[in-house]
């Protein structure tokens, strides 16, 4: 047993309202910079739908993740490392910008500056790739809320084979939202794909990062990641990805996406796992066995042997305690309601999901039944709108039983709690029907429903009860990096105030000088349209800031 600690996340999809606040706060914080305009470390997709980038789950096309050879070995689906070496200069399995979306901006300034003219001024869209006026054909979230679904969602790769279950008709409508970040896998195929070894998994918490110095921009990681959560920065020529907000997590703050989630559906905590078991678990023969194999890799943090082993490997005491209080461990292994996203990719993802309940279809609705019959008040699982088969394709490599089990637990929790809510005697048999005790159901209810800040986020070393007060600890000096004060070079969405310079150790100082200098690096006619999102922090472009007061 080799105990390691992993920072992990669970998202309760049953609570997700699809608001995209997580996407916006993440983008504002991390990727509103030039070169990554199209990049959303966190995105939310409506399912059924194609996702972002389009149809990324179609591994027959993108060849992401691992496959198991007949000899029982894992191999990258896109080919072994040798093949990678041979094709290093041409990577055919890379999504194009159109598969993400072609970012754009608008001629906003015309609204103020338009001369007297025949028609009301209007801000037209302009491609950030070509600089030309454009008709918008796709966006970061084009098929939100089933937009265009009859035409678009039919190309959802997960629907193939269950078309009879997923119908695009008004009466049969269903949808749910799937927020996604990097999975920070235990068995990351991005890292395995990288010829430069630039992708590494942090020892202490398992966060997967791209070393910006070592990355040589081969983009094999983009292909190798089956979730398409490694992105290519077109400006720096480096790969970038979700960092699990490590500068925040290190001081006990939850990730931006989690803390700003108004659905309160994200949980962050540690899991302890046996590093020696990972490869075997990822390599089990039957895909339906992957879920259980992955659960078995996790160690019981209450087990004295595990605690001892953890201490031996140098995991600090408060980390072990955090692992014991971890909501992640509770949701995955105690209550067993969280499931991994696409275990069949065999990357052992560390962001798990509680699948959503959904309203019943008309079969039940049309009939009159006794209101307080438990079986009717909360509908039978098999009458739910979202086909279990669809959820199973997301979370259990197609095995409906674990999904059914979770949905039964959620439904049982509601029935059990209804009695308490109305002041009746709670009924143990309801809990038993879902394989739980009443106390377990109640505890799970508190974790899922009350979901207090300090219960959602158990992040060592800082103690969560102090987390509100820790804002300032993460700060260091500003402006030392490419992109300026949070806003980025030629803009996530806009124009440049200077030419493109790839970030590198060699030009680090030069970049810093440019950022702190008081003149435009490369003024041009576009300067007057600069805004802060499009401004890279270099100088004081005309019109961007109020004139300095004269002494």
């Amino acid at each position, binding site marked *: 047993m080799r105990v390691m600690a992993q920072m992990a996340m669970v998202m309760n999809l049953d609570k997700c309202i699809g608001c995209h606040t997580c996407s916006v706060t993440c983008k504002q914080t991390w990727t509103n910079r030039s070169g990554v305009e199209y990049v959303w470390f966190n995105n939310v997709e409506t399912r059924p739908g194609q996702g972002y980038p389009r149809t990324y789950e179609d591994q027959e096309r993108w060849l992401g993740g691992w496959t198991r050879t007949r000899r029982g070995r894992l191999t990258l689906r896109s080919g*072994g490392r040798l093949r990678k070496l041979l094709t290093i200069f041409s990577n055919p399995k890379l999504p194009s910008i159109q598969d993400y979306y072609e970012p754009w901006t608008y001629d906003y300034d015309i609204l103020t500056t338009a001369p007297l003219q025949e028609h009301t001024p209007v801000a037209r869209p302009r491609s950030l790739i070509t600089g030309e006026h454009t008709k918008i*054909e796709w966006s970061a979230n084009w098929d939100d809320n089933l937009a265009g679904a009859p035409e678009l969602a039919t190309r959802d790769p997960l629907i193939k084979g269950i078309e009879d279950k997923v119908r695009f008709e008004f009466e049969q409508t269903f949808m749910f939202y799937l927020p996604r970040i990097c999975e920070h896998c235990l068995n990351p195929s991005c890292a395995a794909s990288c010829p430069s070894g630039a992708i590494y998994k942090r020892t202490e918490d398992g966060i997967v990062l791209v070393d910006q110095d070592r990355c040589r921009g081969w983009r094999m990681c983009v292909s190798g990641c089956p979730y398409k959560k490694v992105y290519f920065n077109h400006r720096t020529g480096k790969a970038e990805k979700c960092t699990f907000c490590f500068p925040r997590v290190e001081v006990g703050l939850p990730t931006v996406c989690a803390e700003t989630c108004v659905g309160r559906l994200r949980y962050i905590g540690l899991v302890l796992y046996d590093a020696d078991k990972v490869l075997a678990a990822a390599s089990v023969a039957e895909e339906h066995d992957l879920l259980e194999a992955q659960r078995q890799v996790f160690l019981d943090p209450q087990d004295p042997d595990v605690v001892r082993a953890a201490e031996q490997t140098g995991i600090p005491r408060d980390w072990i305690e955090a692992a014991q209080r971890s909501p992640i461990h509770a949701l995955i292994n105690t209550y067993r309601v969280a499931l991994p996203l696409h275990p069949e990719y065999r990357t052992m993802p560390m962001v798990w999901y509680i699948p959503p309940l959904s309203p019943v279809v008309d079969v039940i609705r049309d009939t009159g039944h006794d209101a307080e019959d438990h079986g009717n*008040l909360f509908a039978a699982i098999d009458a739910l709108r979202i086909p279990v088969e669809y959820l199973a394709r997301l979370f259990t490599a197609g095995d409906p039983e674990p999904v059914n089990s979770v949905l039964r637990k959620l439904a049982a929790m509601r029935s059990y709690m209804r009695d308490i809510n109305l002041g009746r005697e709670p009924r143990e048999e309801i809990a038993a029907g879902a394989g739980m005790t009443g106390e377990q159901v109640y505890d799970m209810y508190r974790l899922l429903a009350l979901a207090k800040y300090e219960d959602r986020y158990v992040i060592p070393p800082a103690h969560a009860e102090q987390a509100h007060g820790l804002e300032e600890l993460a700060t260091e*000096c500003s402006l030392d990096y490419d992109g300026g004060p949070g806003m980025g070079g030629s803009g996530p969405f806009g124009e440049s105030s200077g030419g493109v310079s790839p970030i590198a150790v060699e030009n680090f100082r030069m970049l810093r000088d440019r950022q702190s200098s008081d003149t435009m690096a490369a003024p041009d006619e576009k300067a007057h349209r600069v805004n802060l999102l499009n401004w890279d922090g270099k100088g004081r472009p005309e019109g961007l800031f109020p004139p300095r007061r004269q002494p």
Partner: protein
Amino acid sequence: MSTESDFIDALVRTRRFFTRAEVSEDLRTVHQIGGRAADEFYRDRWSHDKVVRSTHGVNCTGSCSWKVYVKDGIITWETQQTDYPSVGPDRPEYEPRGCPRGAAFSWYTYSPTRVRYPYVRGVLLDLYREAKARTGDPVLAWADIVDDPERSRRYKAARGKGGLVRASWDEATEMVAAAHVHTIKRWGPDRVAGFSPIPAMSMVSHASGARFVSLLGGSMLSFYDWYADLPVASPQVFGDQTDVPESGDWWDAGYLIMWGSNVPVTRTPDAHWMAEARYRGQKVVAVAPDYADNVKFADEWLAAAPGTDGALAMAMGHVVLKEFFVDRQVPYFTDYVKRYTDLPFLVKLERRGNTCVPGKFLTAADLYGPLGGENAAFKTVVFDDVKGTPVVPNGSLGFRYGDQGEGRWNLDLGDIDPRLSLEGADAVEVELPRFDADGSMLRGVPAQYVNGFLVTTVFDLMLAQYGVRREGLPGVWPTGYDDASEPYTPAWQEAVTGVPAKAAERIGREFAANAEESRGRSMILMGAGTNHWFHSDTIYRAFLALTTLTGCQGVNGGGWAHYVGQEKCRPITGWSQLAFGLDWSRPPRQMIQTAYWYLHTDQFRYDRFDSLGGKSTHELIAQSARMGWMPSYPTFDRNPLDLADDAEQSGRPAADHVVDELKSGRLRFACEDPDAPENFPRVLSVWRANLLGSSAKGNEYFLKHLLGTDSSLREDDVGAPTGKLDLLLSLDFRMTSTTIFSDVVLPAATWYEKHDLNTTDMHPFVHSFNPAISPPWQTRTDWAAFQAIAEVFSTLAEKHLGVRKDIVATPLLHDTPDELANPHGVVRDWKAGDCEPVPGVTMPRLTVVERDYTAIAAKMSALGPLADKLGATTKGITYDLGREVDYLTHKNGTIRGGPADGRPSLVRDVHACEAILALSGTTNGHLATQGFKKLERRTGTELADLAAEHEGKQITFADTQAAPVPVITSPEWSGSETGGRRYSPFTINVERLKPWHTLTGRQHFFLDHDWMTEMGEQLPVFRPPLDMTALFDEPAIGDQGAEGLTVRYLTPHSKWSIHSEYQDNLFMLSLSRGGQTIWMSAEDAAKIGVADNDWIEAVNRNGVVVARAIVSHRMPEGTVYMHHAQDRLIDVPRSETSGKRGGIHNSLTRLLIKPSHLIGGYAQLSFAFNYLGPTGNQRDEVTVIRRRGQEVTY
């Protein structure tokens, strides 16, 4: 176990190709140890100099506290605060509050759509500079331009067509001030108007211009009714504007119906309460015509056809009445309705041939005649089961005013047991209206004679109305739930709504059964989807019947939860003092905005039908105005300053003079002829608002008649005037459809650049805005901007205005004895000879107000003497403010010299914040206790203890800067937070027997006003959406012709904007479709050959819209959604139909006014600002939609 080949294994183990790191034993991962300098990029990016608390200040109920990050003096991004005080260990918390719109706000700070400098329409600026050079005086220069038809037409025709040029603050404010001075002098102060909505979200910013306009004597335009967010049913039923539970109270509900309220989209930060309450065993039902975002959470989805929700609710009410009142009695329900509703009250029946119709409430005046005592016509009567006689219980309106009612305005029934039904008495057939088909319903009620009057109870009428049959009663009744021929059975509603009868029946039963078991914890969240219809008041009354019959109102976790535009300005007393300048002069002019624009944009000229009693809507508005029911500004066809002078010269009291002039016909109400130049609105200021991009129903009528510029109005020209408005001033931080049409645009500070206060009814906290940076460029806070305008105005006024007297006409007001003006709600029109015009009784109250126009700036910036002299009155309770004014004198400091010498300062926005907090009961425990003590004297019940726990607590601005602060229970609102409980409305009424502010003092099912009777809406009733084919010859829904397909046109709230704000934000555009869209069903799209993302045009008589189509199966056939307020500035090409810039969502809408909303002067049907007034509804509209050429031009 190993990877795929030994060769590669070796390669990996040694070098990992090119680099150095520790490779795991199984070669699975690489762990890097030490040397993490490359992480620095992200570590540094996550760095900032300070974090500042602020929020977003208008049009959103969120009231979310945010952390604004600042680095190197630049705003970088924002994330949510998580420091809301806990609501207890056994419930979820309010953290974090926010949404993607708010999270994207900082984009505006430095965006290219930011208004950085003052701008003036170039044509106008040239004219002004020329005229000023010639005349040497700003006011004369303005007069010179606007009095010249040619020159004024020229600049008005240029509105909205670019050509804005930069000006200095000095020049821009001078022009604005000159326009105000000239307008007041030439036409009168009531030709000046101000529009800024929703004070709760930024009270000081709202108060800035409102204070300026009010001190001038200008008209502040209402917003709640204008937005159609005001549920008129609330004043009708509760005698209250709107009072709703905080979202944390959803948690307490055992049964929750989301009805036309798409909670995840429109109440994003609150949606989690609903999601989480399900885990506590709450059942959730969604009623929505489409598969809306909230349907995902519901246990059941009832897809009622748009606008038919009333039918579903009536059918559910049918089930509730039958199963819980007739077949079986539920003690909790029966006790509740006897005590807290008008159901046991007696109603006189009037003979109509062989049948009867319900008439008026029986009152003490009917019982005792002249011996009935004080206000006898307002004391309603029940039949006491104990004594077996009719009795007058405490608590009706007659007890609220006058000496005899002192200590008796309460709901204490004493020994009285009101009889709910006169069952057993003789049966009488009553004729009841129906609107789903021709004819009426004949149904029997038990009735008996009292003092010569044939009476029955409201309850008996309700059973008749709902078609709940009882043995022995005559009439035509449904035979059972499955009888589809008679209203209001489940089967009947199925034909109307499309909801299966069994489902309607079952949900109705479950709702009531849950309420029975939980003692009232069944709740309905209701929203714009059911509230923006012409007949929404009837839809809502059908909802409220459900929550009231089942004893859910005034119970935590139960009752109505109306969530659209209902933002609660919790410190309302302090805010209203400041906003309306009540500390210097009273009364202010407050106008119902719907009627204002209906008249002044000439939409009334395009009506083709009579409205009520053979009168046009225009005539009804004029009648309502002259009877003192509703306000009307401009009031007279004469300058009220000149009118005051005339009165003084006549030597008669001003009111007498005005009455004489009116009776002689020499003086007329302006609203009788809105197209006469002397009756035009002349100057309009818009701040914190986007009138033309958001709320202006009938956008093209606005452009044509108000602004005098190009429009796409497709109605035949009626010869009405164009370009009525001389000056459109807007203050904004971004370019909008309003700024682009404005004559002067002043650059405003954003929400991250000023101090202000914020509250909502969604949570019980008050918190603050704080500047993360100083207002950049030449931007200023609204508070500072209006002070600057006031300075110039006051200077110019010295020469042109001086001190004047102003005759202010105000309507009969709610929560004052004015509501006793019209006993029994009988229409008395003095002009028709029904009565004499008596100010304050049969016509508006007339007050002479002295206005020192040279002192406006001084008054703006100081708290005036009326605050301590007269106190402040909120909902009938007058607060003495002496202590508070004294406190502010020290807290804010005083003004030295000038007209405001020695008064507390309001110079800075922080001063205004302190004043608002100090002068309100919700934020000042002294005032809350004082108010309750005063109320106790009237009710005779104990109340002051509700605030006693916080009597010494006074919330300061510094408190709100530190963290959101819970407010104090106060008589300003109807619910209690005492002891840390969740806020639910009317808990004080229910628990402390405090009457509702209605005729009976109870919640009303029955309304006996003449016009309600004439409308057929005495009782809850179903009225279908308006028939646009019958009214306007529009094609019928489903018709398809050469022009395209006719569909229902709805404008629900958007996921990607808060009204028009954020719609232009690049983050929101990148997450959506990047421009104006219309959602339609796959079936409709197929009919007209539209593919997803095709350009389409929607055309009706009101105008044209160009948008791209979103085709989705979640939309029902026959209905399209164009999300509200997508503005017209982003990627809107020119229209094929008009050749002009494609329109905005309101290009296809127009105003239609429901006459019953104009009722006033009678009990709860009396005017108060944003409390009652005609709604700017817009959902009954239809449009023809078609695929257009895909090559668009701009």
